[in-house]
């Protein structure tokens, strides 16, 4: 491992550790284009969540390399990456202001976190800068600025349909265990509605502290309650794996308690760490790396050719489609100089061959309409994979359907 530590990487690393926001300009398209269209990418590339920003950055660059040139023609796109260091609304707001006033970006993309995206919404409105949401999942977010368009999902989309599917497929009593932070609350509410509307009963809802070293006592309590299904939402990353291990260790599966959740519970990138402990877990999501679609197989080939063994997950797909929409808008508006024309283009974005299937933007809500897949973790050649086996087609955000503006 140490042989990879050249002096240059060491210097870069020290610069990174000093907390400077690293700008990584990237050009594509013909060299003749004098004024590249600037896309500010607000990502988390340091700290606990650094892997997520890394995936998004890689996906954006992959799109620019392979698919953008054909759409852009003579235009060029320059990515300006900024590190928001995690869910930090104040930093996000400062970065957004700098991107708009100093770097004069035409778009702000990335946008991993709901609190950060919500915080910059007024900045986008007053700066008339389109914000392309590539990950944040809070339902209300796109209502906060007419310049926000979402290409990921709302947590309501996946959790509501998980609940609906579970209740219609033999699970009558569910126990909901979520982490006590805002996405956890969204997941809890969405699951509760989906599950009870389809005739199920949620027997207990518990919120776990966000800094939680040990899941065993929570799961022991679930074991005692004896539901048919345990719905869980946790922040993912290392917590997802420790949770899965504790679930296997306490033997909940042997007592007939099915573990269900949104796709973040068995994220494609964490799944190999979970190993057989995750076998049989049911989740709902808009994308699986194992999805059997031509566009997804192509994406996987491109990714593996470029990045080798580095894994990807839904973050790469939100970014991929977001970049596609940005390139389309640049072409449609001949340079993206008029933000309102850009928003019109983004609002009408649709494609049949996203790696996740067909998607389109709902022009009313500027939120995404897409398939939600029900998946089961199955061992394929000894490697756990999220295998899609049922589809809710072209679903809108259930929260907005029930809470009209």
């Amino acid at each position, binding site marked *: 491992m140490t042989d990879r530590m050249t002096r240059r990487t060491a210097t870069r690393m020290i610069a990174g550790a000093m907390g400077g926001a690293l700008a990584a300009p990237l050009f594509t398209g013909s060299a003749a284009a004098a004024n590249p269209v600037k896309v500010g990418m607000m990502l988390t590339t340091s700290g*606990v969540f650094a892997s997520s920003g890394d995936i998004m950055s890689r996906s954006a660059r992959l799109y620019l390399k392979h698919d953008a040139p054909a759409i852009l023609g003579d235009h060029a796109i320059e990515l300006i990456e900024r590190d928001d260091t995690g869910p930090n609304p104040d930093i996000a707001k400062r970065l957004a202001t700098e991107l708009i006033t100093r770097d004069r970006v035409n778009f702000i993309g990335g946008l991993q976190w709901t609190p950060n995206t919500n915080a910059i919404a007024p900045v986008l409105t007053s700066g008339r800068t389109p914000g392309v949401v590539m990950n944040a999942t809070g339902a209300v977010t796109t209502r906060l600025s007419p310049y926000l368009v979402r290409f990921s999902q709302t947590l309501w989309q996946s959790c509501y349909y998980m609940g609906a599917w579970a209740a219609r497929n033999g699970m009558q009593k569910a126990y909901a265990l979520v982490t006590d932070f805002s996405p956890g609350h969204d997941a809890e509410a969405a699951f509760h509605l989906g599950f009870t509307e389809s005739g199920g009963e949620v027997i207990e809802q518990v919120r776990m*502290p966000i800094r939680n*070293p*040990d899941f065993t*006592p*929570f799961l022991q*309590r679930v074991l*005692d309650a004896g539901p048919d299904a345990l719905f869980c939402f946790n922040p993912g990353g290392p917590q997802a794996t420790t949770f899965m291990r504790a679930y*296997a*260790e306490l033997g909940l599966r042997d007592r007939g308690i099915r573990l269900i959740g949104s796709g973040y519970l068995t994220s494609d990138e964490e799944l190999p760490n979970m190993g057989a402990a995750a076998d049989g877990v049911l989740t709902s999501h808009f994308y699986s790396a194992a999805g059997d679609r031509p566009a997804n197989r192509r994406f996987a080939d491109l990714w593996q050719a470029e990045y080798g063994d580095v894994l990807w997950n839904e973050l790469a797909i939100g970014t991929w489609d977001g970049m596609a929409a940005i390139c389309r808008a640049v072409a449609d508006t001949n340079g993206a100089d008029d933000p309102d024309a850009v928003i019109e283009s983004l609002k009408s974005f649709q494609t049949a061959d996203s790696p996740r299937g067909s998607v389109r933007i709902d022009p009313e809500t500027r939120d995404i309409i897409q398939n939600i897949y029900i998946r089961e973790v199955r061992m394929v050649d000894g490697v756990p994979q999220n295998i899609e086996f049922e589809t809710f087609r072209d679903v809108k955000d259930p929260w907005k359907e029930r809470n009209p503006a």
Partner: protein
Amino acid sequence: MDIVLSILIHSVAFTALLYLISVGLSVTMGLMGFANLAHGVFAMIGGYVAATLITAVHLPWWAAIALAPFIVSVLGVVAERVLYSRLYGKSELDQVLFSIGLLFVASAVAQKLYGPLLIQVPMPAALLEPVRVLGVSTSSYKLVLVATGATVALAVLYALERTTLGAMIRAAVENRAMAEGLGLNTSLLFSGTFALGTGLAALGGAIGAELFPITPAYGFVYLVYFMIVVAIAGLGTVRGAFIASFLVALTSTVSAYFVPEYGTIVLFAAVFLLLLARPQGLFGRLS
């Protein structure tokens, strides 16, 4: 009854891990009066070293767990001689700033070398299989964890209370000037104790990777638990570190089971009240 047993078994496993990592911190803070916030870094390195020994050198899990502490101890001595020793006797602010800086650097280096994701310390699959102990479902991994923690606790207790070396360490903790006056080489003693402390932390980090997963953020994420153990134990007491680890583990397990919504609040409130009543910790002495 099942519940009591289950809570007890899981608390004891958690205790073993907390103790392994924190005891070194307690002793070195007591001995050298050094506010070392970077202690968790050595546990993290222990995890990375063990993972590397298993995946790159193909050692069996047991061997990697046994070897990692020695490698990290050497690193610990180097860090103590080159870095820490410069700050002995400096103000607490200097020490805190230095060690938090070290934490940032170590975290960035770990991320550069191993990437930002969780790194597995792959263990034999048999250890992860559920087993039943007194009717409670747990894994043999946790039993190994408990056995290791108990062995180390007894060994450390014996070494400190029954050997000459232990007497020297205790003497230096009690009154460093007097110990030096009697001809003890405290500088050597410091290095040795630091090596031991970092070695135990590395053992905890490597063997505990299933409970406290190894990521570059390790040193930050679990810092608060190690500090709580040391704070309620009091400085420089190995017995105290053990009891404090157990109290922390028991409190967080019990509160998570009975009042899950207030899990960590219960722990932090209890620590707060305890420190109001006894700022020196349960077993520490006011200096």
